[in-house]
């Protein structure tokens, strides 16, 4: 499968965040997206998933050549899109188990039946793989989970749902060294020709475990540079200033802007 983002402009509450973003991910590829805070990385992942607060101004998102921007969030998920969120949402009263079960069931065709025993085994295996602890299945979804547990729970869901394209938005933040390794291994195990991965991260350490085929640098709402491993190392050592200098990108924040009518001092 192919996920293609074409000249995408996206706004939130009248602020333009994505400004002509292009990206093409083939099944089996792993792409890393790096970039300064506030540059629109999460926006990209959320708009692909169909987050209700973001608005597409122009451009398109195509799955195997077909636009998905008119599809609902759940339809996109069932088409194979997955987003491990930067901040997973807590849903009190709904157990992790019931939730994942419903998510798996909704993917089955009408005449298929969930084989509960098999499902339980798969769920337990996935929990063990991620060292999630026994009680997790019956705890309420993300409620009271530690930062790292929430992240691992996202990967658990990914394992259970077998997506075709998965955005992992800062899956490494909040994970301790061992957990990072564990998540890295689990995601690497999921790699196949049927899975396109988009890793959003700030640090090299995640990419030590999950090797990307492409590394993109995103600044001010678009991808400004694409390369390989060498970009990661340089960003890790030097940050983003060199990219900006090289490409002549001005920092938007430093640009003078009007605060409306203010008395000016002379």
């Amino acid at each position: 499968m192919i996920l293609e983002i074409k000249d995408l402009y996206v706004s939130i509450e009248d602020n333009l965040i994505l400004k002509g973003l292009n990206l093409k991910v083939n099944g089996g590829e792993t792409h890393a997206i790096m970039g300064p805070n506030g540059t629109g990385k999460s926006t990209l992942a959320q708009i692909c998933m169909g987050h209700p607060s973001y608005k597409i101004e122009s451009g398109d998102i195509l799955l195997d050549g077909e636009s998905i921007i008119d599809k609902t969030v759940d339809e996109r998920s069932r088409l194979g899109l997955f987003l491990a969120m930067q901040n997973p949402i807590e849903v009190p009263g709904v157990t992790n188990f019931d939730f994942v079960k419903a998510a798996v069931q909704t993917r089955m065709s009408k005449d298929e039946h969930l084989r509960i025993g098999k499902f339980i085994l798969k769920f337990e295996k996935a929990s063990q793989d991620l060292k999630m602890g026994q009680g997790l299945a019956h705890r309420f979804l993300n409620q009271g989970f530690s930062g790292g547990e929430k992240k691992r729970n996202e990967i658990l869901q990914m394992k259970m749902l077998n997506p075709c394209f998965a955005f992992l938005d800062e899956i490494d933040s909040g994970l301790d060294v061992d957990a990072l390794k564990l998540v890295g291994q689990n995601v690497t195990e999921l790699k196949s020709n049927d899975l396109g991965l988009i890793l959003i991260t700030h640090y090299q350490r995640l990419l030590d475990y999950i090797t990307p085929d492409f590394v993109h640098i995103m600044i001010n709402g678009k991808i400004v540079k694409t390369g390989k491993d060498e970009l990661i190392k340089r960003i890790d050592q030097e940050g983003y200033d060199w990219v900006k200098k090289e490409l002549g990108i001005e920092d938007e924040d430093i640009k003078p802007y009007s605060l409306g009518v203010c008395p000016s001092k002379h």
Partner: protein
Amino acid sequence: MNILKFLKEKKTLIAFDNEQVINKAKISKKNNHLNFEKENDYFVFIENYNLTEKLVFEVNKGLNLRIYLITYQSKNLEIEYEFNIEENASLELYTNFNTRRNNKFNLKLNFNLDENASLKLMSALIFNGNLSLSTNINLNGKKSSAEVEVLNIGYKDTKFNIDQFVRHLNKSTVSNINNSLIATDKSKLKYSVSGFIAKGNELSKAHQSNKGIMLSDSCEIEVEPKLFIDEYNVEASHGAAIGQMDEMQLYYLLSRGLTEQQARSLIIFGYTNPFISMIEDKDIKRLLTSQITRVMKGKADNE
């Protein structure tokens, strides 16, 4: 008397209406006094019983009791229940009151707790009618404690006025109130939740939390939490989170492929599920679940 089938089979049943008393539980009943002397799980079923005086439940010293109280009253609509929980006794009380449509129903529940006594009250309030309920809990004895769990679902033109009042009248008394409220259709749920700690009753704790979800444009939920505290060395808190269904919770569930209807049902279930799971008796649990399913049918659909 129209006793629910599964109740008939309970060995510890006491059921009464105006004509008849079925007392398999062998509870001593003198007029309107029920005296519980043996530790057990009891099932109390009351149908259209003419109560001119209050109905009193005595929980004797040191006993640990569980009582399931189910009533179908559509005639006598001013009713007062009193529960006296003696020293070192504990009562876990489940109530499910029912009445016919549009009846005006006036209900009082009074609890008196002696030293070291404890109460866990679980009230399911799920019927279409007009209810005024006042729950008064008097923590008279030292170290007495009360936990109150309410699941209230308003539908059609249900109108409920609920007053909850906990009085901390001794040292080291503890109260904890959790109200889970769901409103649909044109229902109106109004709560006033008060905790009162009198001077000198140090080391007492009064906590309350109120959660409410409104599923239609014309329903209302109003909660007024109040704390009256006249002592420094105590703990107290209240919170109220009332609103529409949380957009982000919905989005999260949708993003895993649940349809909007499934996602909404699951979030609503998240309000009812913690309450249901507290109920020990399987049959009572099943009855409540089917009651909820019946009134919530179609309510998860986005209007």
